[in-house]
């Protein structure tokens, strides 16, 4: 079984994010990390590939920098990676991103495509669905549990107040929530092996995809700030301040 996992590199969330003047695009340093959201997809892909004699290919679009985030996913155990990088893709909208990823996935071939439900830095939350439409497959979205057998895939699809059991035939696109599996930490051997794994770099011309975006960020403004409130150090009586405020707001 051929599993393709979409993974995104993002600026380290522990660092403050900044926007580039003029374009308002997120500044992307050389050093980026694997989006935590995608560690779940990688782990799911590895487990399914292992149970079904499969391989895992990573597909990632964006400024690659030193590709450290991709190496993180390879170190977990993925077999190889495709990176699509092209100056024309800076500031790409969801439609363009999905076109590019779909073209790379088609070129690679697939039985199953796995993505996260929303990325940490972009959170458009529509890429997996768009991929499915490009690829002409069902999209089993928001999976919190996945089972595969006999060419069928069944998931527990998260809903607002519970979950639905949803099933379809392969090939298919899955989007997985955090908590679908517990992602493994790379071993020392995994990290060493990752250095030797194939990483292929592609451009737009290699894929023959046209960009389409007419979406622009025109301005950034400060949101009205909430007036800073009162801070009370607990000396054993601070709960009374809460009781008093609840009374004042007439909720008790």
């Amino acid at each position, binding site marked *: 079984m051929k599993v393709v996992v979409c993974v995104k590199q993002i600026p380290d969330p522990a660092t403050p994010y900044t926007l580039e003047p003029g374009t*308002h695009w997120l500044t992307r340093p050389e050093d980026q990390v694997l989006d935590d959201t995608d560690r779940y997809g990688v782990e799911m892909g590895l487990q399914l590939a292992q149970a079904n004699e499969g391989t895992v290919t990573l597909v990632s679009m964006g400024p690659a920098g030193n590709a450290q985030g991709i190496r993180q996913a390879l170190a977990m155990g993925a077999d190889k990676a495709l990176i699509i990088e092209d100056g024309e893709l800076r500031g790409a909208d969801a439609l363009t991103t999905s076109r590019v990823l779909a073209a790379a996935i088609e070129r690679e071939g697939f039985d199953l495509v796995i993505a996260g439900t929303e990325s940490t830095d972009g959170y458009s939350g529509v890429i997996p669905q768009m991929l499915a439409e490009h690829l002409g497959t069902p999209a089993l979205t928001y999976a919190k549990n996945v089972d595969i057998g006999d060419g069928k895939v069944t998931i527990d699809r998260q809903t607002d107040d519970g979950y639905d059991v949803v*099933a379809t035939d392969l090939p298919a696109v899955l989007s997985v929530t955090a908590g679908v599996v517990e992602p493994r930490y790379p071993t020392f051997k995994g990290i060493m092996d990752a250095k030797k794994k194939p990483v292929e770099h592609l451009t737009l011309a290699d894929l023959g995809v046209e960009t389409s975006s007419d979406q622009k960020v025109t301005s950034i403004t400060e949101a009205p700030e*909430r007036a800073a409130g009162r801070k009370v150090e607990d000396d054993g009586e601070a709960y009374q301040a809460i009781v008093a*405020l609840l009374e004042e707001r007439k909720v008790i």
Partner: protein
Amino acid sequence: MVSVWVFIEEVDAGPSVLGLELLAKARTLGNVTAVYLGTGSDEAFAALGEHGASSVLHADAGDRLPSGPLAAALADRVAVESPELFLFGQAYTDRDVAGRLGVRLGVGVLSNASDVRLTDAGVETDHEIFGGSQVATASSSSGPFLVLIRPKSFPAEPVGGDAPSVVTLELPDVGYSEATVVESHVEEHEGPQLGEAAIVVSGGRGLGSIEAYDLVEKLAKLLGAASGATRAIVDAGWVPYAKQVGQTGKTVKPDVYIAVGISGAMQHLVGMKDAGTIIAINKDPDAPIFSVADLGIVGDVHKVLPQLIEALENR
């Protein structure tokens, strides 16, 4: 007149609250068609009319996962009727349908918008970024514009419109194997709905253990509040996802929000920072939650919460 379509999912035999919020905005922009997904009924359609829809396209997907067939049917309709704007909520099925529809129509999707305006040049949308501390305004010029709006961006209010005309939207075969919903599970819960509650008490990792979440439930019950949670403790399996507040959970706008052992990460703040009054208990005086709190208690939840509960019980 500008034509605006609104996607609305059925919940408990009627339009979802999110759908009604979108209608409230849509009717200020143009003539409104509701695309209604669900079993449908005269009462449900009448409710759409009361909230400003003049016509309804009704689709029932039965046990098919709706997004594929619905996007196919909508793409054909949109090509014929050319609405200028199509509003969706930032919600699961909405995202599935809008994403597929965008690909079919060859247009982008503007996600996570908190407001939308039609302009001479096209459409303009506002998006809260960096935990809601800044607002990015985006524009797009080639329609139809597909915009996903965050819940609670507009208040749902009836305007007393007439019953709308209703047309059935047939859902075609999509040509690839379809996904079917085999069974549905609804998690039982007590008290008010998290999304609609006037008071919300939420707990985070600072509670330290799943057992300590009982204190949150207890306080919520005493106040007639709904109980909520951060993603950290949902992922840890302490509470079901239905309780998650934030970017990937529920957006809440209660009169009072009490945050217990919650750091106040960006993704949590966007889901609750518009509450009327925010009270936070956290032992770290520098926790970001204090930057939005009207009252911040720097203290240990295991001390403050039991005292608070006892004081309320003794009233």
